[in-house]
């Protein structure tokens, strides 16, 4: 019994030592409940799904693209900080830095693999939609790629900021958490934003991911041309123009702070 207690005590000490992660974890569970409530309302409509009529009205295509988008969101936001964390745990981070290549570039190289991996997974998902579920997608592939590239670029800026924060906080980065949570809840990943109360809907219009998802569904399901999704593309391009330089700046500050405090390799 005492031994079991020792394991529980060890777990508790470990959990409370990561205070930010603990707080964000609890908040995440609460947001999850809210998200499922809205999704429940949407699904309770039955087979009509009038709210997704603009995307062809097919719930499977709607949800799978939402899910694929979430995968890219995860890659863009988490691949940089994930790469840093992984190098710290392997003990290789300091040795990577000994070369002439800047850490930002090393992270981008590392992210390229994660991006390709996700692209492969998403391609499989789309193939499943078409081949297994027999849903015909009228795709504007070039348009979808443009949307995806702009989205990944803009979100990568936020990912870089988050990597800069994680350099200092080590765990429990609030930037990624806030962005992922808001996107999951308010961007129309699992249900259309019309199901949100008006104040929350206003927030969803402030998120670039709302426009990204809309444009992605339009190009992948409705064969929308680049002209048709131009407003969304402009918003995504503007987002990238702001987040990428800001991301590099925050990352650089976090990196240098970790070097000043001597905690670069700590995690």
């Amino acid at each position, binding site marked *: 019994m005492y031994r079991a207690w020792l394991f529980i005590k060890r777990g508790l000490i470990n959990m409370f030592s990561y205070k930010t992660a603990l707080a964000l974890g609890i908040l995440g569970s609460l947001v999850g409940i809210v998200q499922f409530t809205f999704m429940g309302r949407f699904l309770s409509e039955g087979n009509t799904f009038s709210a997704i009529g603009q995307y062809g009205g097919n719930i499977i295509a709607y949800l799978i693209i939402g899910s694929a988008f979430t995968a890219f969101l995860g890659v863009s936001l988490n691949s940089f900080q994930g790469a840093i964390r992984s190098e710290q745990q392997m*003990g290789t981070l300091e*040795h990577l*830095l*000994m*070369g002439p290549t800047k850490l930002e570039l090393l992270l981008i190289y590392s992210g390229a693999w994660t991006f390709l991996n996700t692209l492969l997974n998403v391609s499989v998902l789309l193939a499943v939609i078409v081949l297994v579920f027999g849903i015909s997608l009228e795709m504007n592939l070039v348009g979808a790629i443009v949307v995806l590239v702009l989205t990944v670029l803009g979100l990568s800026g936020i990912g870089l900021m988050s990597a800069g924060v994680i350099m200092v906080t080590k765990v429990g980065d609030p930037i990624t958490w806030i962005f992922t949570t808001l996107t999951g809840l308010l961007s129309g990943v699992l249900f259309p934003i019309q199901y949100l109360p008006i104040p929350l809907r206003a927030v969803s219009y402030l998120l670039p991911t709302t426009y990204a998802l809309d444009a992605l569904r339009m190009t992948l399901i409705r064969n929308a041309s680049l002209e048709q999704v131009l407003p969304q593309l402009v918003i995504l391009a503007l987002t990238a123009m702001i987040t990428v330089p800001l991301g590099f700046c925050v990352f650089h500050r976090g990196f240098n702070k970790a070097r*000043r405090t001597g905690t670069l390799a700590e995690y």
Partner: protein
Amino acid sequence: MISVNSISHIYSRKPQPALSEVSFEVGPGSIFGLLGPNGAGKTTMVRILSTLIIPTSGKAKVNGYDIRKEEAKVRASLGVVIGEERAFYYRLNGFQNLEFFGGILGLNRKDLRRRIAEKLELVGLEDDRKLPFMKYSTGMKKKLNIARALLVEPQVYLLDEPNSGIDPDSAVRIRELILDLRKKGKTILLTTHNMDEADRLSDVIGILRQGRLVAVDTPGNLRKSLKRRVLKVEFREEDLTSYKSKMLELSGRLRRGEETLDATVKDFLLTINLRDGSGINRILNIISTSGLEVTSTRIEEASLEDVFMETTKGR
């Protein structure tokens, strides 16, 4: 060369400075041995010179490049062994790991393969090059770490405990390798806990104590500075009862007139710490008339370990 000028560093969570106003220089073709107890600041100094830590104050140059303003050039001049066992990708083998890091360090593909083969042979890992890193022993991991530092053939080497965890045979090989680098005119900063190794390899030794450089000199001068010599007298083995009684009398006679005499007896060996003013002739005369048969007498100088213990006392 390496030039360190009044480097201080304070970690945010520790009130005591990790390094305090440390200055030293290491010229080309020489080895500077940095010694100190655990936590004295040796690794912090290596990390500062590697540009992995930005010091709180002070200046330093590596190969003529400022560690604050010319970081990339500093890194390009360096081969670093940081005293950790990990630091490689577990599922890649030795060759693949070196190929990855060599590429990141800026070596071209053609040159890289030749250099990897060369360095693996140099550290004695040529037969284990295809073994995944996770299967490597502690010593093998350390050797791979050294091979990586050698890959770019830099001008300056920072070697943080390169021989810790390595078997004696391999340690000799690594020491020869370090001496060979010195012959080639490379500048080497070496941290170690092995006093014998520091003594054998270093041209100059610096001893850190609580972040301060408390001694810098050649190993010989450091030993001399302690002004301590030890007289060791061995006696022929004889009946223990008679030996003990003679030894008791001898101790009494030796201490007469020199009450603070520092002498210890272990089995049939008498060790006396000689200080300035300790009259060797008087001691030897007393011993010769003690009735004990002397088989050998020798005077030993203070070792580097004695210097280290004395310098870092009360840390």
